[in-house]
């Protein structure tokens, strides 16, 4: 642990990231360029989130890392271990106990509090990137608030499929100004983006940081006749019976049988510990 500075990054790098975070908070949803460093883990594996967490952590923090909603996915384990080793912070799997949560692809089911911070790992921060690959162009579009292309894309979906066919990384408008990529969370999580906690987004490879302060208006793009819909698998969790949580589908045998379980493993555990049961746990509980 003593071989590296607290939280791995050198102080000058942390200052550079911290300045970017402050500007990100001051202009919600705007992507601040930052000189992302080469981290000892691959680009695309959370280097942006790791850098933002490293610049934000204090030794008093309790740190939680989730990937796909779960604490024990291999990359979450790996990132948690990195900070245990380099920052010596306490870690937890309990959302309730965490002061800083780094996430990939999910927002926890439990409502986050004022005193919590959530850091998202972002692969492609530019919501317009798949419509226009050039940074020089998309930057212009943001500056002119020219988001017609995005609406055209969503509308083409409707005319072709009868519904908007974006199911994750669903674009939002932040505080009535910038269209933002909420990272590849399922659109089920979009309504949670208006929250009490501070939200920070880090894209390492693409060298961007952005932020959503607490209580900021975050609107999922939609149309009057095709309103945004936060969807999930139409099942309760087979382990805890939750009807309100996002579910993973698991293939359980060679015949292709399925079961549905909470993607947020801590949420599921809490519910089971409180005595809730699902289809697959009823017999055991009885």
């Amino acid at each position, binding site marked *: 642990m003593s071989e590296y500075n607290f939280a791995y990054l050198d102080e000058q790098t942390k*200052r550079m990231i911290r300045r970017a975070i*402050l500007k990100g908070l001051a*202009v*919600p949803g*705007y992507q601040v360029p930052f000189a992302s460093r080469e981290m000892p883990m691959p680009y695309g594996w959370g280097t942006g989130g790791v850098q933002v967490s490293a610049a934000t952590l204090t030794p008093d923090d309790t740190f939680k890392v989730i990937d796909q909603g779960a604490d024990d996915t291999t990359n979450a384990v790996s990132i948690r271990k990195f900070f245990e080793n380099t920052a010596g912070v306490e870690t937890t799997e309990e959302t309730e106990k965490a002061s800083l949560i780094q996430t990939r692809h999910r927002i926890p089911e439990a409502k986050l509090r004022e005193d919590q911070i959530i850091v998202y790992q972002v692969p492609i921060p530019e919501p317009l990137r798949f419509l226009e690959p050039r940074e020089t162009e998309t*930057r212009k579009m943001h*500056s002119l608030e020219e988001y017609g292309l995005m609406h055209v894309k969503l509308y083409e979906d409707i005319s072709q499929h009868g519904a908007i066919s974006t199911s994750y990384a669903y674009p939002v408008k932040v505080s009535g100004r910038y269209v933002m990529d909420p990272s590849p969370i399922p659109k089920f999580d979009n309504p949670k983006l208006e929250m009490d906690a501070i939200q920070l987004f880090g894209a390492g490879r693409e060298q961007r940081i952005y932020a959503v*302060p607490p209580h900021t208006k975050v609107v999922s793009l939609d149309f009057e006749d095709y309103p945004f819909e936060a969807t999930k698998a139409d099942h309760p969790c087979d382990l805890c019976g939750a009807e309100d949580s996002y579910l993973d589908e698991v293939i359980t045998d060679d015949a292709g049988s399925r079961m549905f379980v909470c993607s947020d493993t801590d949420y599921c555990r809490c519910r089971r510990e409180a005595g809730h049961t699902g289809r697959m746990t009823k017999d055991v509980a009885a």
Partner: protein
Amino acid sequence: MTKQSQFSGGFSDASIQAAHAFRAAMTAMARPGEIRSLTGGLPPKPLSIAAGTLLLTLCDPETNVYLAGAADTPAVRQWLTFHTGAPVTGAAEADFALGTWQDLGPLTAYRIGTAEYPDRSATLIVECAELTNAGATLSGPGIRDTACLSLPDIPALHANSSMFPLGCDFFFTCGSEVAALPRSTTIRSEG
């Protein structure tokens, strides 16, 4: 207490103190109007502890700092250079500017960012005689309903926020306390 010199008054445990200081500054910027404690640095007079701590936390050779009026003393310059290496510049090139509201002068002197890069704007650290949750009514990102904060100049700050997404961002410091006002905040006069 030992005599203040350019070599004293920095962070004694830089990575840890800077981490705590940044969290306070970040929380202030994320929650406009909220007053938080900010300590760690012991800058020479006339700088407040909070303002000095902000400089130590955010400035380095990559940031230009403008010291306005009374804040521009040889002792402050030496202290800033020794602890941060930040170049001292004029208002127009400043990434950070520090001084009383009077000394900082009209906001038109500072960078407000460009349409494509609104982040390239100055952050002003305004030394205040008092910092209280009274005065102007604030609303917008970071604020649940409304918040109140003593502001030095409501019309000027209102004009700044009306340029959003361009504009300056502010820290208000008083003793060892800090509050922030990003350009995204809507400001109304009392009442």
